[in-house]
C-alpha cells in the first residue's frame, strides 16, 4: 500500500479575495443539478450545496466591515474518519472515503431521517423538501454525470466527485496512476473570478493547498499558517476546507470563544 499514498482532497478559500459575487454558487448549481423553486429566498428550506455567508464585524457605522464566506461541505475527517455525520447515518447511506477524504452521500440509500443534518453544525446537509424542479428548458442542460435527487432525501456538496472519477478513468486509460493537480478541480474552484478558491490534495506537498495552509499532521491537519483557519476548529470535526484572512475578526468568527479568552487569538 506504500506506493499509493491516500489522498486528502481539500480546499483553501481566501476570504481577502472573495467578493461575494456568488459565481461559485451558480457554478455549483449548474454542475450538480441543484433544483430550483419559484421562491428560494428561505435559505433554510432551499437546496444549495455552496452557500455564501455574509459576515460583519458588528461594529457601528462607519467602522462596519463585511466579509463573504463561501461554505461548501467541509468534508470533515473527525478522528480517523469519524466525521459528525457519517457515523450517525442509520442506513449506511454516507461514507468517509479514506482514499480521497471525501464524505459521500448515496441518494438512493438515504431514506430521509435527517439525523445527519442534526449532526452537521455547518448546515451543509440539506433536505429535499419538494420534488426537484427546474425552470423550463433547463432540464435540457442538466449535467449527465450527476444524478438528480428525489424528494425526501438529504444531499450535499461532494467536492464534484464525478470529476475525480472522470479524471481518474482518463488517467488510467493513459496508463497513469496519479492525477496532475489541475486534472481534478471542483466547479466552484474553476468558476471563481477572483481566484479565491484553491483545490488540491492536502497530503501532497507539491500541491498549492498544502503550501498555502501547511496542515499540521500531528494536530489533525490544523493549519500552521497563522492566516489560515478552519470553521469550528474546536469541535474536533477536522474539516478539509481552510479559510485565509488577514483580518483578525474574520479569523475569530470562525470559532467560538468564551469571554475569558477575550483577547487571545488562536493560531
Amino acid at each position, binding site marked *: 500500500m506504500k506506493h499509493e499514498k491516500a489522498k486528502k482532497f481539500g480546499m483553501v478559500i481566501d476570504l481577502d479575495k472573495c467578493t461575494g459575487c456568488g459565481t461559485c454558487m451558480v457554478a455549483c448549481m449548474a454542475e450538480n443539478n441543484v433544483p430550483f423553486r419559484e421562491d428560494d*429566498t428561505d435559505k433554510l428550506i432551499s437546496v444549495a450545496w455552496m452557500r455564501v455567508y455574509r459576515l460583519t464585524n458588528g461594529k457601528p457605522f462607519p467602522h462596519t466591515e463585511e466579509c463573504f464566506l463561501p461554505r461548501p461541505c467541509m468534508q470533515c475527517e473527525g478522528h480517523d474518519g469519524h466525521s459528525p455525520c457519517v457515523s450517525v447515518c442509520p442506513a449506511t447511506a454516507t461514507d468517509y472515503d479514506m482514499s480521497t477524504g471525501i464524505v459521500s452521500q448515496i441518494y438512493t440509500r438515504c431514506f430521509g431521517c435527517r439525523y445527519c443534518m442534526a449532526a452537521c453544525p455547518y448546515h451543509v446537509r440539506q433536505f429535499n423538501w419538494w420534488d426537484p424542479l427546474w425552470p423550463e428548458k433547463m432540464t435540457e442542460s442538466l449535467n449527465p454525470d450527476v444524478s438528480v435527487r428525489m424528494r425526501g432525501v438529504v444531499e450535499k456538496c461532494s467536492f464534484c466527485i464525478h470529476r475525480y472519477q472522470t479524471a481518474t478513468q482518463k488517467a488510467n486509460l493513459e496508463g497513469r496512476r496519479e492525477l496532475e493537480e489541475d486534472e481534478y478541480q471542483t466547479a466552484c474552484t474553476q468558476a471563481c473570478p477572483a481566484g479565491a478558491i484553491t483545490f488540491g490534495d492536502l497530503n501532497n506537498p507539491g500541491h498549492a493547498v498544502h503550501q498555502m495552509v501547511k496542515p499540521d499532521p500531528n494536530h489533525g491537519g490544523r493549519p500552521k499558517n497563522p492566516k489560515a483557519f478552519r470553521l469550528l476548529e474546536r469541535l474536533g470535526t477536522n474539516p478539509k476546507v481552510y479559510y485565509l484572512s488577514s483580518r483578525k475578526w474574520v479569523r475569530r468568527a470562525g470559532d467560538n470563544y468564551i469571554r475569558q479568552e477575550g483577547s487571545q487569538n488562536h493560531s
Partner: protein
Amino acid sequence: MGGAVGNAFAWDSYEACLGQTLGDRWDVLVEQGFWENTDFSQGRWADAFETDSSKFEFAGSQINALPAYNPVSPPGDESFYPLVLVPYDSMRLASGYIGSPPFLIKALEATILKGNDVLVEVNPATAAKYGLKDGRQATLSTPRGKAVVKVHVFDGIMPGVIAIARGLGHTAYDKFLAHKGASYNALSAVVEDPATGLDAAWGIRAKLGKA
C-alpha cells in the same frame, strides 16, 4: 531586436543597456527589487497650484465661468420624508433592463430578497428611531410612490439613509424574477442641476413606516 533597430542599438541586450545606464542602482534593483532615492523630498502641497485656493480648481477665479457651488438636495420635503433612499448594486443582481436569470435569484442573499419583498438596509439607530424590526415588513414611501419592503437592520449603512438594491421590481421576465421586490426607479425622481441642466441628486427623500 534585429535588423536595423538591432544594429542601431548600442548594447548587446536591453539588460546590458539597463545595467550600464543605471549603474549602481541596477545592482540594488536586481538584489532588492526596488531602489529608493533617499535624497528625494516631496514638494509642499501649498506650492503645487498657483490658484487662489492653492488647490486644484476647474476654473480659475480670473475666468469666473462657474457659478458658486450649491449642493443639490434630494427631492422631497424633509419634514415629511425624514430619510434619504439611495440605490446600490448587488453583485448577484443584474441592475439594468436585462433581468437576472433564475440562477442569480436562487443565489441571492437572504438579506436582499425574502419571499416577494426586497429588503432595504437600515442602520440600527434609524430602525430604533422609527420602531422598525429586522426582517419585518415596512412601507417605504417617497414623493414618487410607495412600496412594501422588509427591513434589514445593518450597521454598514449610514444613519438616516435607506439603501435598496437595484434590479428587482420587474414586471417582465419569468416567474423567478417578475413581481419580486420593488424597483428604485419607480420610487425615485430627478432634480435638475441649475448650472448644467443635467439630472442630478443621488437618492430621494423617503419615509419608512411599519406596514
